């Protein structure tokens, strides 16, 4: 099944943040007004009412003087999704086309996913005590529409389509960028975390955009999910089982030594 995703091109994005508003418009999200802190990027992170933001980073660049790097940031819809791994209620599912969908009806607001996510994307929405995050506009895509963010993007920095085809296009584009003053241009999302269902064309290395260079699922999460949850838990039934066996065997043995009064201890 083909994976459908957004390709974001940082060389085209003007950071108008229409995607951010269109997302709120489509997903019926209230504003979360926070004070200005000295950067155009007013939201430092996604929150329960903000599924997507645009990262803005000013970087000195010897060749250009200054670069103002933009990167749309939202759920990366990782193929190997940590949120899905840790969710105790199985609220996360993966669609056939690669979106990681969170079901608020199953969510109990425990926020494990928030901290498990290498990008810290899923966020707690206080008024409902549920997690909320980007759905890749699954409701739109299922009906044949592109996601709200990609639909509204004026300069065309967001393209929605078949992941493999987008990767092919991105490779060409990055080559051209590398030849035209952006030697560090790169694609982000092909292999990171075993593949993201979000792709980025970056004009520089990911760290210059505020993206983790080599995102990893946290070791503690892996330990927990791969060892603790599946194996350690068996200790409990083992303990219960042993008690049950003991319950029987001690009484059987006691029957053999009828000469000893039980009440004073078994000896």
């Amino acid at each position, binding site marked *: 099944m083909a994976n459908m995703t957004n390709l974001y091109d940082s060389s085209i994005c003007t950071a108008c943040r229409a995607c951010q508003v269109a997302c709120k418009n489509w997903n019926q999200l209230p504003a979360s007004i926070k004070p200005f802190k000295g950067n155009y990027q007013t939201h430092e992170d996604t929150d329960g009412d903000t599924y997507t933001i645009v990262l803005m980073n000013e970087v000195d660049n010897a060749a250009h003087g200054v670069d103002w790097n933009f990167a749309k940031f939202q759920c990366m819809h990782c193929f190997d999704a940590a949120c899905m791994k840790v969710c105790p209620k199985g609220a996360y599912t993966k669609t*056939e*086309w690669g979106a990681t969908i*969170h079901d608020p009806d199953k969510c109990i607001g425990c926020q494990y996913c928030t901290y498990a996510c290498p990008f810290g994307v899923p966020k707690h929405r206080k008024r409902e005590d549920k997690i909320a995050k980007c759905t890749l506009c699954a*409701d739109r895509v299922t009906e044949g529409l*592109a996601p709200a963010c990609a639909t509204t993007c004026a300069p065309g920095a967001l393209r929605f389509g078949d992941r493999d085809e987008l990767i092919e296009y991105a490779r060409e584009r990055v080559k051209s960028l590398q030849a035209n003053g952006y030697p560090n241009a790169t694609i982000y999302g092909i292999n990171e975390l075993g593949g993201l269902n979000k792709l980025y064309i970056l004009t520089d290395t990911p760290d210059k955009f505020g993206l983790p260079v080599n995102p990893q699922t946290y070791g503690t999460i892996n330990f927990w999910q791969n060892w603790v949850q599946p194996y350690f838990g068996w200790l409990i039934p083992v303990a219960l089982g042993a008690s049950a066996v003991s319950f029987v065997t001690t009484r059987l043995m006691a029957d053999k030594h009828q000469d000893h009064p039980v009440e004073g201890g078994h000896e």
Partner: protein
Amino acid sequence: MKVTRRQFLKLAGGTAASFAVVDLGFDMQATAAAIKELRIKNVTPTPTVCPYCASGCGLVVYSEKNAEGKFVRLLSVVGDPDNPINEGCACSKGSAMFNLREIYEPETGHQVVNPKRVQKPLYRAPGSEKWEEKEWDWILDEIAQRIKQTRDASFIHKEKIADGTEIIVNRTEKIASIGGSGLDNEECYLLTKMMRSLGVVFLETQARI
């Protein structure tokens, strides 16, 4: 992937809006139950034009109507995919057009009318610290009275020009009008016609500044 353009939603009249449609190549009915139903399905959009910069981007308004066809509430306002200027795109301002009328409350998430919108004509008396709600009839009559008083008291019908002859000038310099660049053409036209006929010469719009 095939990106096709097909008639997505059946629309009335000459206001057909087609959408950039993605052909996923498989039946999407089987997807997770967590996915919400498309809330603009079977809703006829109304085309309009963005009120912000002068690029003239088309927008479409999706509204919920009751059985009698009366407007109930907004569903969404998005870029008009048919408009050749923006082809369905909208910038952050255009994308926020829903908020012009309605908002989602942060505390409850409920959809309510934007509380900043003024819903009644208001009057502020000289020296007062507050507004008073008024009816349209009252306020329009009062304004018409003020215009007449000021105009009649300050009207210059005839004036001598440099060569000493007297000509009709029909103006008042006591009334001024500014703004109007956010109005529709028809509204601007009525405004310019009304103001000029009142003799207003202090007539300005945002084009100047």
